[in-house]
Each structure stands twice: as C-alpha cells, then as structure tokens.
C-alpha cells in the first residue's frame, strides 16, 4: 500500500500499489515456468529471456547489413566490408561484443541430425557476414589527472573473443599528426588553434590563429579542454572526440559497419542531452547514420560507413540481467569511475538527463522507448549545407543569420540606448556601445561549425566564467581533422578574409586558359 501523495487526502488513506506486471507471474512466452524478470510489464523466465534479447539485437541490425535492400524478404546476409565495434567497457558494449561473437563469429556451427549446419545456410552463424571484426577502444585517462589507464584491462576482455582484433586508441590521438597520417593518408596537416580572449576563453569570432604551436598531443588536448567555457562543454567535447576518432579509424580499416552498444536507456539519455545542447539538427545521426569523411581533394570516398546501435530496443535493465545471467563481466565506463572518484562536475550533464530517464524506466518503462521513437520520426526541414568540421555531422545552413535575428549583438542600437539608463554608471563601462564596423567581418570557423559545436565552444555558464588551470598558450589547439580540408581555400587562414575581385582581375587570372573564338 502507498500514499497517493495528495496532501488534501486523509493522512492514513492508502491505495493499493499498482502491479508492475500482468496478473500472472508465469512466463508470458513459454507459459510453463514461473517468471524471473519483469520487462515492461511482461514476465519472462530465465530461459526465454536471452533469446528475446538476441532477437531484438538482430532485428535492429540485420536490415542494415546488406549494402542494398533487395527484394527478398529474408536475404542472405553479406556485408561489403568488415565490422567495427566501438567498445567503452560499459554494460551495453560488453553485451554487444558477446552477442556479435556468438551470432556471427563463433567458429563451430552446430549441426542437425543430418550433419548439415543447423538453421540452414542462411543462418548467421553459418555464413560469414563480415570477414573480420575490429574492436576500437578510446582511452580517456589523459584528459583527467588521477584516472587510471584501463587499456590493458580492456584488452584482456577483448582477448576472450579470439576472432576480434583489438585497436586501442587514446583521446589525445585527436591532436596527433601521426595518427591522422595513418588514417587519412595525409602527409602533413597543420595543427590549428583558435584565438582566446583575455579571460582564457574561446572568442565568439572563432578565428583561426596559427599553425603548429609545439605542444605534445596530450598538452594540446588538455589546453583545448581547459579553454572550453563550461563543464558540459568538456563532456560534449570528449564524446565528439571519441566518436570521430572511432569513425575515422573504422573507415580507414575498410569497415562497412560500425556498431555501438548504446542501450535504449542510454540512447534516450543521449538524445535528450544532445537536443538540450543544440544538437537537434543531427538527431537522426544520433540514432543511426551513414558516414564518410569529406575528402580534402580528389574523388569522394566510395565506402560509406553505416553506424548502427543494435541494442537500441534493449533497456538498461535488460542489459544488466542479460550480462548477469550470461556471466558477461563488465569493467565499467569512465563516467562511472569519475563519479566514484568525486569528479562530479563532469557528470552533471549525465546526471540531469539520466536521473530523469532512469526514473522513468523504473515507474513508466514504456515512456523511455517513446523518447527514442519520437526522435526517430524527427527530420530536418532543409538539406544540410555541409559537414561540421569539428563533429563531422551534418550542418544546417544560415545558423549565424538565425542567431543574429534572435539575439542582441550590440548595445549601439538606438532602440536599446534608452534601456541603458537603468544600469548604474560604473557598470556601463563593460558594455560595448560602439557602432559596429562597416568592414565585412573576417571569415571565421563559425561558418564551418554546426550549431551544437559552436555552442560547445562559446556558451557561457550562468554561474560566471569557469576557473580553469592557467592556459599554456594564448591559443586553443583544435583536433587535427579540423584542418583536413584546405583552410586557405576556405578563407580561414592566410589573410583571413575572402575578397571580391573585379571582373578585370578575374579575366586576368583565367586569360591564359581561354580559347580564342
């Protein structure tokens, strides 16, 4: 019995607690055994539970395996490249490894009575869907002091699956030219930086400041993170760095599919967090995407990487029970380790969204899937204007124009001058009331970033400027892939501005190529 929570009700008025399952405690699938687990009001026994999770996994993954859908209702599965698994050591990705191995890479297929492979030749375990599989892990201990390097622990987990090749990465590889040379084939890509304001924060102008600044990858990464304005921005930046590192690594190794172990619960959390930080335009990519790097020059890459989250219909509770009953050991993700170590500030973004969604899962489990399904239906109105240089996701057009329409950029507007009268004189000194220059602004990196990345770099906390460690230089290094495409061509470097040339000058430039009539 429990109180209904209505303060106007009688003090001892109790109502029967609503059951979290149907009338019977027996398994709804086999109807023979008593149930062991309740999943969204349905009761399952231990023996029936595991096949249900396996079925959800395959249902989410297999429609995307073949490069073309074809006409057959049950086509033979054959991928165009190899498989890459993103592994964090967490619950979902640990289960992902196990299910992928058991379903597609276990060595000895069971035989039926006649000696043929059981399930037929089209059953996944009998056909080689992917020729090989790599497991990518990104170690983030370099970003935080006091964090333990878990690479070898992760390696020992992956080694339990002999069919998988382990590819360890480090978060600072995002600032390492040698890593970039390996994955992109580019011989020399400059390390570029952003100007910092006098407060040590990235300026709104986002001007590219300089080339190589002589920092090691770890130093460059820490400088970049310490220049970010809020703790939320640091968390977002780490997620983006991790994702782009794995995307490029998978693509460079000929993978056709990249799988992440996000459960329905963690996916719903990340969707809400992403939207709250301005990532709504790429919400479909958060669920599933087809990705290819934008080439600096030459032909477009032919192999497209399909990024899929096959556990997207499996809740965190199901994942936990699956791991327990199948004896899958879970090392744990760095976020939880940080939480235990008391680095609470870096889990704030996780806390608000996850508390809400996890609470929903406990009392209203069907609502969690509603979040993911609703986001699945969202679609941007217009086509993307390109790929964001920082997060490598689709970028909507005219972001700066929209921001200009909805925000006050200068106090020089006559309509606002009257508003300044109420501000005490000593405080007016901080307000820029000068008339903006009529000279066209320098082309900045802003025009090549999505709204979410721009917000990550420039948003200010309402609690004031973040007190960060002294910045090593006056510029914030950017991930190495930002300078992939020619910055001079885009007008971000050199004299920093494109200028319109006259028709006579244009004619002089191309005169030698013109064919005389």
């Amino acid at each position, binding site marked *: 019995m429990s109180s209904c929570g209505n303060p106007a009700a009688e003090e001892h008025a109790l109502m029967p607690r609503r059951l979290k399952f149907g009338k019977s405690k027996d398994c709804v699938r086999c109807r023979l055994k008593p*149930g062991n687990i309740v999943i969204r009001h349905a009761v399952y026994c231990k023996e029936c539970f595991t096949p249900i999770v396996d079925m959800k996994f395959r249902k989410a993954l297999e429609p995307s395996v073949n490069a073309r859908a074809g006409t057959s209702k049950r086509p033979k599965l054959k991928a165009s490249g190899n498989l890459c698994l993103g592994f964090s050591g967490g619950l979902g990705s640990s289960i992902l490894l196990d299910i992928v191995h058991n379903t597609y890479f276990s060595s000895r297929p069971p035989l039926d009575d006649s000696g043929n492979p059981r399930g037929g030749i089209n059953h996944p375990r009998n056909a080689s869907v992917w020729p090989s599989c790599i497991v990518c892990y990104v170690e983030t201990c370099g970003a935080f002091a006091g964090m333990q390097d878990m690479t070898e622990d992760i390696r020992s987990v992956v080694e339990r699956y002999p069919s998988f090749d382990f590819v360890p990465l480090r978060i600072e590889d995002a600032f390492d030219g040698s890593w970039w040379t390996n994955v992109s084939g580019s011989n020399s890509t400059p390390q570029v930086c952003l100007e910092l304001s006098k407060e040590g924060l990235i300026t709104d102008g986002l001007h590219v400041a300089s080339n190589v600044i002589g920092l090691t990858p770890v130093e460059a990464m820490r400088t970049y993170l310490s220049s970010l304005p809020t703790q939320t921005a640091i968390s977002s930046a780490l997620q983006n760095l991790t994702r782009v590192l794995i995307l490029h690594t998978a693509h460079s190794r000929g993978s056709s599919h990249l799988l992440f172990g996000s459960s329905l*619960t963690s996916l719903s959390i990340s969707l809400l967090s992403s939207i709250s930080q301005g990532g709504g335009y790429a919400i479909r990519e958060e669920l599933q995407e087809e990705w290819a790097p934008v080439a600096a020059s030459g032909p477009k890459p032919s192999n497209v990487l399909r990024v899929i989250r096959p556990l997207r219909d499996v809740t965190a509770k199901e994942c936990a029970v699956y791991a327990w009953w199948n004896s899958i050991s879970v090392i744990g993700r760095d976020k939880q380790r940080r939480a235990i170590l008391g680095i609470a500030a870096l889990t704030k973004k996780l806390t608000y969204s996850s508390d809400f969604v996890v609470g929903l899962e406990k009392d209203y489990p069907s609502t969690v899937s509603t979040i993911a399904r609703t986001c699945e239906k969202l679609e941007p109105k217009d086509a993307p204007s390109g790929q964001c240089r920082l997060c490598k996701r689709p970028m909507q057009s005219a972001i700066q124009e929209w921001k200009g329409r909805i925000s006050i950029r200068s106090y020089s507007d006559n309509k606002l001058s009257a508003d300044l009268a109420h501000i005490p004189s000593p405080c007016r000194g901080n307000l820029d009331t000068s008339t903006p220059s009529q000279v066209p602004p320098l082309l900045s990196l802003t025009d090549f970033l999505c709204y979410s990345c721009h917000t990550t770099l420039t948003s200010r906390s309402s609690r004031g400027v973040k007190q960060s460690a002294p910045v090593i230089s006056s510029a914030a290094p950017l991930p190495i892939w930002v300078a992939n495409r020619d910055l001079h061509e885009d007008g971000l470097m050199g004299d920093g501005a494109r200028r319109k040339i006259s028709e006579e000058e244009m004619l002089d430039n191309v005169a030698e190529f013109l064919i005389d009539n």
Partner: protein
Amino acid sequence: MAGTMTIKLVFSGGLELLFGNERNQSVLIPPFVPSDNSTHSSPDTPSTGETKAADLEYLIYHLRDHVLKERPELFMENGTIRPGILVLINNTDWELEGEGSYQLCNNDEIVFISTLHGG
C-alpha cells in the same frame, strides 16, 4: 546469535566500488527488526518498540548504515534503492517478489546490479 539469518549479497555493475570493492559479502539479520527500519540495535539485542519480520526494505537500510563505505546517495534515495539499481532475490526480479516488502529467509541471495554505466 540464535535466530539470525545469513543473507548472501552480491554487488555488480560497479556498485561494488561503494562497498569496499568486495563483490561477494554476507550479513546477519535478526528475524524481527524495528518497524521504522532503525538499524541501531545489533542482531543480538532484542529491539524494543514495534517490530516487523525482517524484509528487504530493512536490509537496504542496514546495508547503508553498516556495510556501505562511501557515497550513500548513489545507493539509496527516498527510503529505497536508487533508480537504476536492479535487485534480484534468488535470481528473480524483486518486482515479482514484492520489492521492499519481501520477507527475508535464511540463505537468501540478494544481488544488487547497477545499470548506470551505460553503453
């Protein structure tokens, strides 16, 4: 300690970090405990005032007050297990066994699994 029950505990999913990194533990619980879940009396001394049969709700309070090493807010919230922590009683979801009102029996195995370490 006549009448006390041995309850086997397993912590998983990172929750063991809060309990001194010990995954497998056991505790002794008296058959009858204070109705208000007060854990000040020991299993040896009989508790005064209203009592109830030892249930899972009391066990959770006992773990918080006597076994937990740090960060109680990551284990308990609003008088019950924090959302995101799965509880299995003898390999069965506690939702099928009445959650906190499940009456403990000798040699019961209670498993606490944190689901908060994502994908």
